[in-house]
């Protein structure tokens, strides 16, 4: 077992538990008969940017849904900002979610509302603020992501990168304590990538929040993350700073960080013997 919080490993640096805003203990979760997580332990430190990485299919997005309470774990505990998700009621869960902001993979803006209305949506739904104040808040957040001038456009008129930035503005409009990014770099051109990276860092520092980034873009995330968790096979296989992970003494970590085609995660999908299969088709005269 590697890199699990609490084990005496020369590389892992255990943090003070009370400084963790999300504590996951011994989490088990499966879907469709397959186990996705077994005995997962993760501590997300407060006020930092934490990256969760892993090969495709390790359930990174599922982890986010577990943290936000959209799905329930089979066993184990998840404590978010002091609330135990096993015992939380639906109404309290909704209150908790207002303290979190989430950026979805494709932005997930409401297509029938304008950019302004999209960012204003949480304010209108949850607060009774006067229109004037809503307007100021929305414009401020749009300014932070650099899209104040696009306030009157519709989501369909925006590029992918701009979509995501608007979604980011929407995610921070209620001043959350935790910001969650689900694969924010997918499909972006280098410039937009740079913009998003910069925003992640600046927002985290300027607003004093905790950021959790799920991604598999090793290069990009290494530039901004403070702590990285590498998941594989339903467990944490590595934990540490990006620099520590690059020189981690583990095959799977090295395959992932180095982008190697073959290794513990095999290139070939399991198949019967190659020559056997080629020859079996032919008729022997």
């Amino acid at each position, binding site marked *: 077992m590697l890199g699990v919080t609490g084990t005496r490993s020369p590389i892992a640096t255990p943090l003070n538990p009370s400084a963790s805003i999300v504590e996951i203990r011994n989490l088990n979760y499966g879907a469709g008969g397959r186990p996705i997580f077994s005995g997962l332990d993760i501590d997300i430190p407060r006020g930092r940017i934490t990256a969760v990485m892993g090969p495709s299919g390790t359930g990174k997005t599922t982890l986010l849904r577990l943290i936000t309470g959209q799905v329930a774990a089979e066993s184990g505990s998840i404590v978010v900002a002091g609330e135990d998700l096993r015992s939380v009621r639906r109404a309290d869960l909704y209150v908790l979610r207002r303290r979190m902001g989430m950026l*979805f993979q494709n932005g997930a803006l*409401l297509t029938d509302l304008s950019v302004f209305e999209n960012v204003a949506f949480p304010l209108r739904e949850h607060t009774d603020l006067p229109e004037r104040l809503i307007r100021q808040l929305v414009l401020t957040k749009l300014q932070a992501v650099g899209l104040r001038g696009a306030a009157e456009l519709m989501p369909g008129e925006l590029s992918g990168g701009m979509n995501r930035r608007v979604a980011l503005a929407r995610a921070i409009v209620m001043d959350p304590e935790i910001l969650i990014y689900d694969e924010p770099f997918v499909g972006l051109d280098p410039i937009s990538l740079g913009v998003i990276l910069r925003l992640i860092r600046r927002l985290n520092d300027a607003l004093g929040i905790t950021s959790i980034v799920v991604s598999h873009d090793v290069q990009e995330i290494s530039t901004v993350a403070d702590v990285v968790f590498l998941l594989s096979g339903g467990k944490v296989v590595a934990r540490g700073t990006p620099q520590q992970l690059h020189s981690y003494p583990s095959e799977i970590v090295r395959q992932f960080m180095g982008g190697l085609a073959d290794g513990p995660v095999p290139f070939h999908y399991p198949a019967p013997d190659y020559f056997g299969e080629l020859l079996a088709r032919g008729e022997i005269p």
Partner: protein
Amino acid sequence: MEELWTSLIESLVGLGDVVRFLLRLVAESPRALLRFDLIAKQIYNSGALSLVIIMLSGLFVGMVLALQGFQLLQRFGSEDALGTAATIGLVKELGPVVTALLFAGRAGTALASELGLMRATDQLSAMEMMAVDPIRRVVVPRFLGGVIAMPLLAAIFSVIGIYGAQLVGVQIMGVDAGSFWSQMRASVGLSDINEGIVKSCIFGVTCSLIAVYEGYYATPTAEGVGTATTRTVVTSAVIILFLDYLITAAFLK
């Protein structure tokens, strides 16, 4: 044989799901009514935008009804009863049923694909994450919009149909205008109109329910949205025709 049994069980489970979904929608309706602007917009989408197809169809159906009815009644020398025949046929059967089928095709598919798309692009999940209940904000207004729009559309269909019947019967086939209307007034009762209204209300609930259910639970892919749309039309059509029989039989007592 075993396949039949399993598919029967599956259908019952599905039916149970749909009924529980309906109960949830009904439970959320009072609070959704507070946001009447959302419902009004959905009444526009489901009702006002369907007006053209409903009115056109109503006109043609009424005209055909008059043509066929006239031929039939002529054999018994009762052409004067055309007004009655057309009105009863439209108000009790054709109005509710044809409107419901057209509604399923136009408004139902729009609802299903809208919700399916919102599901596929994570908009519904985003709302859940923003602590907004998507059922209350997005699904119930669409459901109520359809429920309110259907009976109104059916009534408009029947009225335009009667006009079309009158157009063919009186203007073209030569039925006496006075007899057309007076016989109708004498023979058509409020109970007939009631039956038509009850039918269109029940159909409204059915079509809207099926449409929003399929859309909300669509598989979040492009394929899934397409499947949801076709299933909406097919399921709605079958259930409407089945319910039509039940309601007509029930009223016959």
